[in-house]
Structure formats: structure tokens, C-alpha cells
């Protein structure tokens, strides 16, 4: 198999900002994303229902440069006031050229 090494950026963020985050990661060059609904707990307490605000778990396969830009954007716009967690890892992707 012809696999391409890419970055998988995973962002867990409160649902109220997930649409905005998705818009911004697309502007930064992500060609796609996958979202799953999530519950969670962190420094800002439990997030497990409509009222506490659910979380969204956003994943995007991108090249190194775009991954850097996304993390930078999150740190600037969202980390101060919103419940957000983000991490990055290396994955090997089928037909990976599609995503950079």
C-alpha cells in the first residue's frame, strides 16, 4: 500500500464554538474533517448535556504546516475563554495526497 505520512489533529471543544472552529480550520487549509459528539470533563467541569454544553471531537488529517497553523489559531482564539483540548499525532494515510 502506498501510504502518506500526515498529521492527525484532534480537537475536543465545546459545541457552541465547533462550527466556528471548523470554518477556521478549512480556511487554514484543511481539506476535510470528521466530527463525533462527545462528553467530557476537564478544568472547566463536566460537559455532558445540552445545558452544560456538549463537546465535539473534531479530527482533521493535514500536512505539517497546516497542523501548526491550526494549533496556533486555537491557542490564540479559543484557549483563553473556551473549553478546548488539542493534540497531534503521526498517521499514515491511504491516498494521502488528497489531503494536502
Amino acid at each position, binding site marked *: 500500500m502506498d501510504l502518506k505520512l500526515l498529521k492527525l489533529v484532534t480537537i475536543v471543544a*465545546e459545541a*457552541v*464554538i465547533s462550527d466556528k472552529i471548523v470554518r477556521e480550520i478549512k480556511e487554514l487549509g484543511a481539506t476535510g474533517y470528521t466530527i463525533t459528539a462527545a462528553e467530557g470533563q476537564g478544568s472547566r*467541569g463536566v460537559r455532558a*448535556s*445540552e*445545558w*452544560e*454544553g*456538549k463537546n465535539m471531537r473534531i479530527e482533521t488529517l493535514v500536512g505539517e504546516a497546516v497542523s501548526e497553523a491550526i494549533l496556533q489559531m486555537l491557542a490564540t482564539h479559543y484557549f483563553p*475563554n*473556551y473549553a478546548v483540548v488539542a493534540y497531534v499525532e503521526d498517521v499514515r494515510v491511504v491516498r494521502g495526497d488528497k489531503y494536502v
Partner: protein
Amino acid sequence: MGTLELIQLNLLSPVVLAFFLGMLATLVRSDLKIPDELYQALSVYLLLAIGLKGGVELAASSPGDFLLPAAGALALASAIPLWSYIILRKVGRLSVPDAAAIAAHYGSVSAVTFLATLAFLSALEIPYEGFLPALLAIMEVPAIIIALVIARANLPGRTSWGEVLHEILAGKSIVLLLGGLAIGYAVGREGFAAVEPFFVTPFHGVLALFLLEMGMVAAQRLPDLRKAGPFLVAFAIVMPVLHGLIGVFVGNWVGLSLGGSVVLGVLSASASYIAAPAAVRLSLPEANPTFYLTTSLAITFPFNLAVGIPLYYAFAKFIL
């Protein structure tokens, strides 16, 4: 009937008891879970049903009867966030964003408290104006905008007002309420008959189910009472009573019936927890959700549900 008897009568309704059953379920850490999707489905149903029925009644009432109450409702919805903000800043010493956030919630309204009031009036067989849902819709938005304007005037940084306005006006409660009103108005009593068995007949039961869920949510917030502190707890009880009495008074003054005045009082007294939290979280992220959600959801909402509604009613009877 004395106020105490009214409170008792109110407490013994299935709708109010369902709320306390929900609280109890959370307090005993039951595994009872109302799926979020059911909550969403019920809220779509309730908002649309309020709108539809209101629209049908609006079509049947003359516009002249409606204008003065509408003006009164608008005035209340504009004044309440102003003085609430001042009190929260000066007396409570809260930060600008926290004070503005809470002011937005208390100036806006709670559709579920509104419904519980109609249920209470029905049980007492007291009539009320058909156009009241229109007042609910009128009072939902202005306070949120006013509070956000205050906050932005006192905070550095710029807001994209287009986005904020869109967030509020295209919010689901406004779309369903106004949409329902428009549809109800357009189809009239005759056209409405076909959907009445779904949107009217089972209504109170659906409300009871919804309040079961609300009780669970409110109880989950109870541990936050300590974080809110004594000032906010007092605020969340004293201000509704104040707003409730003012609302009844204004209602009486603009020519509403006994039932209508009670409802205007309840609308003034109630705090939003559907439209306001979403708008505030997006536009005032610096405000702490613990403060505005705990006061509106865990204190003011149960207080109005259990004690406020009969209280404002007793006051309305007293001054009429």
C-alpha cells in the same frame, strides 16, 4: 384562596411535581437518563405549539387590544437588564462580563415558566388573552442585545454585531415561536383543527415530561450554589419577586386581564435559559457560565415554578 393555599395548589400539579421528581432522581444519583435528543424534540414541540396556538388566537383578537400590552412588554424587557446590570455591578461587585451576562438572562424570558403559568391559570379556570405568546416572543430578544451592548461599551475589543444579532434572531426559540405564530395566524382556527390533537391535547403531559428533565438538570447545578455565593442566591430570588410584581402592575396598567397580568408578571420575573446562554457563551465568553446558569436554572426557575407563580397571582388579585 390565600397565597399559601395557592402555593399548595400549584405544588400539587403533575407539572410541578414532575420537576421535583427529576431533581430527586439526580439527588439519589439514579441512572435515569432523558436522552438529549428527547429533550431537543420536546423543546421543538413545545415552542412550535406555543407559537401555533398563539397565532391562532392572535388572528382572532383585534390589533388594538394588542398594541398597548406589546409596548408594556417591550418596556419591561428593556428596563430590566439595565437596572439588573447596575445592581449586579454596584451591589454585587461582579465583573463587567458576569454582570452583563446575568442581566441578559433576567431581562429575557423562560418559555417553560410561561407554560407552567398557563397550566396554573387553566387549573383555576382563569381566562387570559390569546396573544400572550406574542408577548413571550417580544420579550425574548431585546434584553440580550441591550446587555451585550452594555458589556461591549465597557470592555476593550470589538464585537461582530452582525454575528451576534444573527445568533439571537435566528436562534431556534425565535424561529419556532415566530414561525409558529405566523403559521397559526395564517391558517386560523379552522386550519389549525387538523393538527390540534397533536399540538394542544397532549400539551400538558409533554410539559410534565419536559419538566422531569429540567428537574434533573437543575439539580445537577445545585452543587454550584456555593460557588455562586450569597449575593447571587439572594439576587436570584429577590429580583424575580420584584420583577414579578412590577410586571403584574404594568400588565394591569396596559389593560391586560387578571390572567394576562399574571403572565406578564411571570415573564418579567423569569430568566432565560435557552436563548440567552447560547448567545452569551458566544458573544461574552469571558463571563462565567456557573454564575448565569446556576442563578437562572437552579434558583430562579424552581422558585418561580413553585412559589413565584401563585405569588404573582395573589398580588394580581389583590390590586385588581
